[in-house]
């Protein structure tokens, strides 16, 4: 008996449990039998247990180098360090599916454990939906994509992991992104449960939003890490290539972002109910579509996945999801009436609608570009593709408008805003933006689009800082020091200020993208020892090549001195690393030196003997801001998500429109009242989670 056998048995038992749980949950809900529902809850925990067991069996197979397991032999070898051997768990198709199923079961278990807060009517249907997805994954794992399949002949050593994957990024980026994809199942399950039961109350809204926030944060982390990895490993000087695989990860993020904004309208004014459900279902559908797309080989991508027949399973699954959710929509539609009406475009609702249209517009354009080969093949019988220029020129302008809306939005009140109040709030940031637009050309920013982009970012950053400043000022007047005031502000109004932090992160990221997109300089030179190359104020002094041998690897490095404006910056060692089993596929060791906010990105393109090298240099201005901005977005997301201590006796759900919300009544009441008066649109009520 091998560990792999144990794993396979665990998968089968997990499938049994999942099917049982689904059936019992439905029965329990239909007959209103709490004992059956309780049994279903325990069933969910059992599924999680079996999947943890199966995953552990696979990890143990890897760590004990059981090359009798085909998957282990394909993705690891004896020379790999233990952490890459463990990470190889999700390094291939079978394992990544198992990882997905594992994460789904773990999240389902978390749902069950925390389900006390969820309306008892909803919980069984959430479980049914989750278990249906789990069942699908387990069937695929057991039949077509079995990670525990054994070889008849046990090879002495495995193939090893692909060199591009032998990077610290491998340890965290794929699991994060896969977890992100998977996590959209939970909001989806909530949506399905709400459509079946017709219970879309404020408690439901709070739960689904918190889960969506979690998914959003995970997906944000996955996307940023993916970009970071591509930047550090692939060696083309960029971090985002609009490849179908990248787009697939971006799509659900966009619709989730839209959802997080439009739920505020639903929460506040009882509108957009149908639209919000559409967004939740779309996020999950797009996540499944992404998995289908990258694994079916239907769209040509620079990432080649194993072209197995697994694609058809996902296609069928996708079709089922779409049919079921459309059916539920039609069934539930008559009940989903908005409770209130729209008043004025110049209002918080108006800007949220704008935000939604723009985000969905970006998602549409990206999806269009991604599946354009299929569309053109169907319509014109010719396969055509669109490349990065398409996405840049479509999504670029939309993003800029989005960032502008992001600056204006928080300054608008619900329902309607007088133009005087609006101007009062906008004057300072608008002035800052105008100043920025006027000064930048003097500083060498001649490109009109870059200038517009920077000015818009300045505006929005200015608006956010202005808001923060005014909030702090109010608290400061009540005797809090500024740092404490800021801390208290964020602590007390987590959703609002967490949102601002996310916005600020996105603005930083946008500045980084604009900088590296418009002002990247690249140059290639073949140098002999002692020769220099000059790129945009930087001087590279090439000294020679060295070779290093490590366990299972062989590395060629160039020794280069880096100078900036005649100031010595240090030695850099761009190189190539060869892995034993992948001798034909050297991986680049890119040298990235960050000076200020500018990256000097140096790549050893080719070499000849010990004293000749072809060196490719990218000067990427402001790229660091992409990472800082991404990190800030993540922090903001977590702040928004962070559970608040429950407070008793606060009811904020049945509020009349137009009356400023009674802000959370903790702390000095004078502060809250004053804030409500002083700041237009500061009347967000606090959600007690």
């Amino acid at each position, binding site marked *: 008996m091998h560990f792999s056998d144990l794993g396979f048995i665990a998968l089968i038992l997990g499938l049994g449990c999942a099917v049982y749980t689904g059936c019992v949950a439905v029965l329990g809900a239909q007959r209103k039998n709490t004992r059956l529902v309780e049994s279903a809850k325990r069933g969910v925990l059992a599924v999680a247990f079996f999947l943890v067991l199966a995953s552990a069996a696979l990890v143990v197979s890897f760590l004990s180098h059981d090359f009798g397991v085909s998957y282990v032999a*394909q993705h690891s070898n004896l020379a790999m360090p233990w952490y890459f051997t463990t990470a190889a768990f*999700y*390094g*291939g*198709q079978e394992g990544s599916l198992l990882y997905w199923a594992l994460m789904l079961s773990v999240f389902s278990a978390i749902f069950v454990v925390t389900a006390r807060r969820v309306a008892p009517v909803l919980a069984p249907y959430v479980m049914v939906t989750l278990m249906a997805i789990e069942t699908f994954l387990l069937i695929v794992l057991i039949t077509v994509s079995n990670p525990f399949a054994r070889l008849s002949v046990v090879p002495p050593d495995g*193939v090893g*992991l*692909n060199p591009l*994957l032998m990077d610290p990024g*491998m340890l965290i980026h794929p699991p994060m992104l896969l977890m992100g994809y998977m996590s959209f199942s939970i909001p989806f399950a909530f949506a399905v449960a709400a459509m079946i039961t017709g219970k879309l109350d404020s408690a439901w809204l709070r739960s689904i939003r918190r889960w969506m926030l979690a998914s959003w944060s995970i997906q944000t982390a996955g996307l940023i890490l993916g970009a970071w990895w591509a930047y550090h490993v*692939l060696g*083309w000087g960029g971090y985002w290539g609009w490849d179908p*695989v990248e787009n697939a990860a971006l799509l659900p993020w966009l619709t989730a972002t839209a959802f997080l904004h439009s739920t505020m309208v639903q929460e506040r004014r009882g*509108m*957009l109910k*149908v*639209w919000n459900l559409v967004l939740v279902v779309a996020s999950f559908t797009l996540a499944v579509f992404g998995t289908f797309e*990258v694994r079916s080989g239907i769209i040509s*991508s*620079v*990432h*080649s*996945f*194993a072209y197995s027949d697994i694609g058809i399973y996902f296609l069928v699954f996708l079709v089922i999801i779409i049919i079921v959710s459309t059916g539920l929509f039609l069934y539930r539609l008559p009940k*989903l*009436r*908005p409770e209130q*009406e*729209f008043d*004025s*475009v110049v209002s918080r609702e*108006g800007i949220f*609608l704008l935000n939604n*249209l*723009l985000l969905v*517009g970006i998602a549409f*354009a990206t999806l*269009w570009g991604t599946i*354009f080969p299929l569309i*053109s093949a169907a319509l014109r019988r010719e396969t*055509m*593709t*669109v*490349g990065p*220029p*398409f996405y840049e*020129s*479509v999504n670029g*302008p*939309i993003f800029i408008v989005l960032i502008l809306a992001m600056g204006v939005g928080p300054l608008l009140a619900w329902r309607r805003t007088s133009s005087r109040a609006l101007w009062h709030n906008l004057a300072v940031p608008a002035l800052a933006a105008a100043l920025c637009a006027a000064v930048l050309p003097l500083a060498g920013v001649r490109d009109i689009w870059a200038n517009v982009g920077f000015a818009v970012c300045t505006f929005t950053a200015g608006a956010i800082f202005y808001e923060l400043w005014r909030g702090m000022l109010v608290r400061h007047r009540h005797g809090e020091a500024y740092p404490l005031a800021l801390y208290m502000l964020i602590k007390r109004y987590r959703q609002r200020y967490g949102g601002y932090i996310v916005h600020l992160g996105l603005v930083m990221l946008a500045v980084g993208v604009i900088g590296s997109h418009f002002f990247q300089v690249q140059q*290639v030179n073949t140098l002999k020892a002692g020769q220099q190359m000059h790129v945009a104020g930087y001087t590279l002094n090439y000294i020679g090549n060295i070779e290093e041998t490590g366990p299972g690897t062989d590395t060629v490095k160039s020794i280069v001195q880096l100078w900036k404006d005649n100031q010595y910056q240090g030695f850099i060692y761009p190189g190539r690393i060869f892995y034993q*089993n*992948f001798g*034909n*596929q050297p*991986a*680049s060791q890119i040298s990235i030196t960050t000076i200020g906010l500018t990256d000097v990105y140096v790549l050893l*393109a*080719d070499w*000849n003997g010990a004293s000749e090298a072809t060196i490719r240099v990218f000067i990427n201005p402001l790229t660091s801001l992409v990472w800082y901005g991404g990190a800030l977005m993540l922090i903001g997301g977590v702040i928004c998500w962070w559970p608040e201590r429950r407070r008793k006796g606060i009811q904020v759900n049945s509020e009349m429109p137009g009356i400023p919300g009674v802000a959370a009544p903790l702390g000095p009441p004078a502060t809250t009242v004053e804030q409500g008066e002083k700041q237009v649109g500061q009347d967000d009520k606090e959600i007690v989670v």
Partner: protein
Amino acid sequence: MQPALAAPTEEKIPSRRRKRLPLSFIIGGLAILAAVIYLVYANTQANAVYYMTVSELRNCTTCTTQSVRVAGVVQQGSIVRNDQQQLVTFVIAQGAQRLPVTYNGVVPDIFRPGIEVVVEGHYTGQGPFQAQNLLAKCPSKFQAATPTP
């Protein structure tokens, strides 16, 4: 007030006697929708690149001016590099069809005989295909696509 025939979002038609979505919302929504659709349409027109097979390429009349993409497997022993000019020539094959390619620029890390590449560029009908872009299909994050040595 206008009936909400073309509501910009999926916002469903509200209840009986109340007023519908205000006109300003409809106009604003439609304007944004139109802008997005225009952007997508215009840029599709401007940026679409034909994906062709080698045999289609041979019969292509517009490929001198229009950029096209061709995929194929790099042939053994066909790679000739000129490091001074960063020039590389090679032959890609698609089934039995072969196509010589010249490319000027930095070659991806994993470029070597036997891998699948996508070249993008112009073809005059004779001589080699002039590639402006060379994309190597990168063995994915999740699958070691390279055969065992």
